[in-house]
């Protein structure tokens, strides 16, 4: 059985020292090993951004795609081979800026994919512009007078869109994060794990300390019920989106199991020749 080591490769990430994404990478590797996955059965599809580089830092199949489209590529991969563990990953700009449309529809569609967003409330790779999750009033390169737009709260958007598995982590709490990713991978359906992953270079507001002071860890609340959608929404609103832990989970049949005519055997392993009989039947319609 594969161990964490088997998911490591020789590449030294080009992230800045201290970047939150290191822990996310480690948590994914640990979670994959814990769930008993083998590297060749995992495909990590990432977008573009500092965080988007993650697919290159884990020993598994992977695609570093184009900005905002990781989820769309990932869904194509899943349709082709439903036996693969498919993980989509990227930043908040990637997922909730340019890729928000795909996110909403991935939620709606509910394929068995785990989506991990490294949310640093800023655009890192392009050197520090305001992102869709940057707070109102946030002062930065592209908003020198303070952000006049309001922040999008990923967990609220996801829950509002009807997501069936929703978790949020913080990159320093690697044990919780590993557990959340593990559970997301084992969940049969679309699962979002939004991770507060500080950008130490460009975001001088939402620092490790800032998150530590503001985050509410749901693990510490024995009364919290993650199966109650209304309570989950209330908690998100109450904490201004800054709660971590398993926020919501419900059972729902995954997309792949609802496709008419779809087989349990992955498409990639099926014979693709069209039978003479079916071909003849097709021609009849045009006679």
């Amino acid at each position, binding site marked *: 059985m594969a161990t964490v080591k088997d998911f490591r490769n020789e590449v030294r990430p080009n992230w800045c020292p201290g970047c939150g994404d290191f822990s996310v990478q480690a948590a994914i590797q640990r979670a994959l090993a814990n769930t008993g996955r083998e590297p060749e059965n995992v495909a990590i599809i990432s977008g573009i951004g500092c965080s988007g580089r993650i697919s290159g830092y884990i020993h598994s199949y992977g695609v570093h795609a184009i900005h905002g489209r990781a989820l769309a590529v990932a869904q194509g991969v899943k349709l082709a081979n439903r036996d693969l563990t498919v993980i989509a990953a990227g930043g908040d700009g990637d997922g909730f800026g340019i890729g928000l449309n795909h996110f909403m529809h991935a939620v709606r569609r509910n394929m068995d994919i785990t989506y991990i967003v490294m949310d640093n409330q800023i655009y890192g790779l392009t050197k520090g512009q305001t992102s869709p999750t940057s707070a109102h009033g946030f002062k930065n390169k592209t908003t020198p007078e303070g952000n006049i737009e309001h922040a999008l709260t990923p967990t609220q958007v996801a829950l509002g869109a009807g997501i069936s598995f929703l978790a949020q982590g913080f990159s320093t709490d690697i044990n919780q994060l590993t557990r959340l990713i593990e559970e997301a991978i084992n969940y049969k359906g679309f699962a979002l794990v939004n991770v507060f992953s500080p950008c130490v270079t460009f975001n001088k507001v939402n620092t490790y300390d800032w998150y530590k002071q503001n985050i509410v860890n749901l693990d510490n609340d024995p009364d919290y019920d993650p199966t109650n959608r209304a309570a989950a929404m209330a908690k998100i609103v109450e904490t201004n989106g800054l709660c971590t832990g398993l926020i919501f989970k419900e059972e729902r049949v995954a997309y792949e199991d609802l496709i008419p005519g779809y087989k349990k055997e992955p498409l*990639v392993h099926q014979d693709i020749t069209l039978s003479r009989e079916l071909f003849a039947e097709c021609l009849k319609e045009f006679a």
Partner: protein
Amino acid sequence: MLDQLSWKVGGQQGEGIDSTGEIFATALNRHGYFVYGYRHFSSRIKGGHTNYKIRVSTKPRPANADNLDMLIAFDQETIDFNAHELRPGGVIIADEKFNPVAPEGMTVRFFTVPLTKFAEEAGSAIMKNMVALGASACVLGLQPETFESLISDMFLRKGQKVVDSNMAAIRKGFQFMKENGGEIAEFRLKPGDGKQRLFMMGNDAIGLGALAAGARIMPAYPITPASDVMEYLIKKFPKVGGHVIQTEDEIAAITMAIGANYAGVRALTATSGPGLSLMMEAIGLAGMTETPVVIIDTQRGGPSTGMPTKHEQSDMYAVLFGTHGEIPKIVLAPATAEECFYMTIDAFNYAEKYQTPVILITDLALSLAKQTVEPLDYDRITINRGKLATEEQLAAIEPGKLFKRYAFTEDNISPRVFPGQKGGIHHVTGVEHTEVGRPTEDAAIRTKMMNKRLNKVRGEFPNSVSYTGAENPDLLVIGVGSTIGVIDEALERLTAEGKSVAHAHVRVLSPFPTETLQKYVDRAKKVLVVENNATGQLKHLMQFFDIKGEFLSQLKYDGNPYLPSEIYAHCKELI
């Protein structure tokens, strides 16, 4: 006796115009005629004039006829809008119900027929189209039974009674015309050869081609005139375990298709101009990552939303030069529905052989016009999945090491693996990369990788240009896509008049068939490039791809396909 004629039915959109034309065309196709049907429709769903023009011929004529022999009118607007197309002595059959007025100053044979009334007598007013078909049959010297097998195929599952009442409606129309001077000797149609052929539009042929090629996933976003491809496959894929997914937009459609191909399943998407524009970045990703993907672009009137239901051939620059940077690209341009089928299969084979995006480009007339197609040959379906890594190759890779997905090879094509295969782990990225897919900015590797990608596709593809006509013509006409039939027809007339003309039709736009075209161009005195766009894209492509010579241009971009007479007249002026 006629060896060809043109017939049109018109009325309000939503009034069954399509089905009327469809039944007429299919029935005649079954009797061994060559049929071509072109629908005129606008971007309205209900209401608004629509018509279906059908050409029936004893030999292949995949083009609209210059004029009209018969017009079936369900309303006055149909007469006012279309009568000018009628040739002198042409026939109008108009429903008595709307008190039709004959077109002014025209010598036509005008029949007011109680279409609706007879239909009601036969059981229901909706059968007025059947009455009209019976009336048409009488004029053309056909028997009402011409429609019988089709009517029975269409309605038998609703019961014999429904079949009978439809046939009764047809007979009523036939009988009325017989009694009222509708049997016109000069309108007799020569019998068809009785051979069984197919009647299909380009979009259906593409759908069937994809199915036959082993495509099993189609993510797509609806757009005219491409939607029928997905609609066709939505019906078919469940039978083979495949799936059509209606995506949130075209970007999702193509990136999902790329994901599926990466994971080892043949996947395609189909779109038209605006959607193609949205796909451009992803087409670059497929080129850079050497992922096969097939994209169908059914061109329509542009730019922007342009004329969604109108014909044009103006995406050629976009498909060839769209996406930033430089990638290999294969662009196939079938000219007939039959070619749509076979070339869609080619598209998948090329995509996997060369590991590149392949764009199959059609135009609205080819996508939507229905035409007679010779029976498609199952034995001509071949599936070639290209270079795949063997089990031995993969077994030789040490655990933890990466597979050289982008290995430099003699022919610049590297073996593929699919996720899930042990030993095949590698990284795929749109960033410039090494042989194992690691990002790199090393100048030497960059240059080598660019060369590898751009040199994968070399030389001309087989059958990239067809040639008919005089060996050393005074005039060579060059075209692409659906203009094949109109050009052929125009040139046939000129040849009959003793003119020396020839026709070269381009089927592959990338790799551009420079050598072959140059050979033809060199032999001709004059060269005319005929296309449906405003800037002469094909002509400019010929120049761009280094074909030496002087090229004249005939352009049409009013939204309608050419009529044979337009090309004939233009050519005549040149020789």
